[in-house]
């Protein structure tokens, strides 16, 4: 089991100004799953992703990541775990400006305990997402779709246990969005665990399982019957 949460609650503020966001969520996620967390704006899906991605702490409940109770870890231990076990793909790409594609992908390796072959690792990952020809391009010299593929390569470079993708197609045209989703699909096919946060049903349906949130509660947690992309479609990841 990769992730196990029990009665997870999250609230912001203190005393009279408390805003309760998550009201006691419980579920498990296994290695190799492709999960979409769906919900309308304000449902708490981003907060849930931040907690699962170890960027934020829960208020009450229990969160085990690979069998480890993460609520007891300090900030530095959480940072190490994020670096080694978690990859993030953001809607706004978050690539460093005036920095090459290769340097962007190498960024997580700068904080890794593994100090060897950073360039070789980053190059290999970039080639696997068909960006081997863009290594020395600056992040402002490539298209939106390519930027998101760079972000995916960056998420993969430390060989994480799970990739969190927060609205990864939100800033892309439909063609690029489709390519990015195909890439995530293929990564999942190769055994990577993907947790996708989206408000778009179409995007969410690429997953095997959809957890639907509404007002901080899980209203549905079920497998996807009608997957849009078949496994035998064009494979981008080699």
């Amino acid at each position, binding site marked *: 089991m990769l992730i196990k949460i029990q009665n997870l609650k999250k609230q912001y503020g203190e005393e009279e100004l408390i805003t309760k966001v998550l009201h006691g969520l419980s579920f498990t996620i296994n290695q190799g799953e492709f999960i979409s967390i769906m919900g309308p704006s304000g449902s708490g899906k981003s907060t849930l992703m*931040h907690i699962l*991605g170890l*960027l*934020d702490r829960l208020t009450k409940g229990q969160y085990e990541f690979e069998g480890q109770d993460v609520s007891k870890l300090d*900030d*530095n231990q959480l*940072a*190490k775990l*994020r*670096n*080694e076990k978690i990859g*993030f793909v*953001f809607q706004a790409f*978050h690539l*460093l400006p*005036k*920095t090459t594609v290769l340097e962007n992908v190498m*960024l*997580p390796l*700068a*904080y*890794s305990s593994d*100090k060897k072959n950073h360039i070789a690792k980053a190059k290999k990952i970039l080639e696997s997402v068909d960006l081997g020809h863009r290594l020395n391009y600056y992040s402002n010299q490539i298209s939106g779709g390519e930027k998101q593929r760079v972000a995916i390569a*960056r998420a993969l470079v*430390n060989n994480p246990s799970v990739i969190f993708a927060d609205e990864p197609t939100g800033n892309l045209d439909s063609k690029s969005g489709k390519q990015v989703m195909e890439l995530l699909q293929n990564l999942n096919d190769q055994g990577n665990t993907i947790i996708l946060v989206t408000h778009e049903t179409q995007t969410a349906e690429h997953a095997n399982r959809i957890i639907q949130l509404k007002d901080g509660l899980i209203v549905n947690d079920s497998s996807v019957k009608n997957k849009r992309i078949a496994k035998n479609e064009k494979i981008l990841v080699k």
Partner: protein
Amino acid sequence: MNEILKTISIALKAMKKNKIRTSLTILGMVIGVASVIIVFSAGAGIESLIVSQIQSFGTDIIQTEIKIPSNKKGSDNSLGIVQGVQITSLNLDDLKDLNKLANIQNTYAGILGQEQLNYKNETKATTLMGVTASFIDIDKSEIDIGRFFTDAEDKSLAKVIILGNKIKNELFGNSDALGKFVKLNKTNYQIIGIMKERGAMLGMDFDEYAYIPLRTIQKRIMGVDHILYMTHGIYNTEIAENTAEEIREILRDNHNINNPDKDAALDDFRVTTMKEMMDMMGTITKYITLLLLAIIIISLIVGGVGVMNIMYVIVSERTSEIGLRKALGANKSNIMLQFLIESILVTFLSALLGIILGVIMSYLISIIATMNGFKEWEFIIPIKAYITAFLFSIISGLLFGVYPARKAAKLDPITALRK
């Protein structure tokens, strides 16, 4: 190490990206650091100038001069002078006794007066140096034309005078002055010599002095018996301190000064060796340098605050980047280090540019000083100037970078990513 190099590279890129802002940020620090170099260099230059000027009086002399005794150490001497207190205890009998000391080769005594010299229609206010005949043997001044007066002339209150180079030129121009008479206190004095040009040293322009026999000025002009100072030529400079102490003992005895603790403040005279004189001048220069440095350090602090300000702007501008780095695994120390290195890099670069500017300016100052008559001014940049500049830049980079860096390190990654 690799990470630090990487951080330096990131910081350099950020600085390169914002050239104008970086230039303005470092400008204050550059000026501050350059000032540190200039002050140190000027301090060393002035010191070399003073040392060389003191040495031009000769290192083989000891100076004895009158002073107002005090019950406590301090500046009562100057206060006494202002109040018109006169010390008349030092006289030619002291000179005779002191000349008996083994290490004293010879001594001349002196007294100063301000008088007007007249030649035909020309008038010149002059500093009159009444000295004994041995002056010309001990002092570094030399006769250009004619001769200095003799001991016999001094003892006979001869009305003879030797003119400084400038006075001669002002009163006589290019015409010959030797043998002619100038009026001093309505009495004619015959010019028997012209001094060789010597120039100004430590605020004294020797070329504007006129020399007459000590006893002549004492009896004929001032009506006194005392002297103001004595200069002793000594054989062995190694034992100058001992000789100075022997002088003090003799003078205390002669002047009936009961001073068993040998407290110089109680004496009515001051004995100074040339080494003491140089030490004293060195101390004065050092304090002036320190005072200037204190002022400059204030400007460096202002420059440092400028760096801090810009670092806050940089942190604010790169909030999203900080959020991303934290999401990708950077911990607080990583972020703190990144911004601290950036801040130190800014101040380090300022130090480098400041030192280059400071060295160039110091060199120009030394050239200007040399061209304006301060020939002994040496172009020196002491090692401590470089060390102070670098240390201060790194310390201010650390001090003024630490708060912005802490702010960056404390940023919540989620909030930062949303920026």
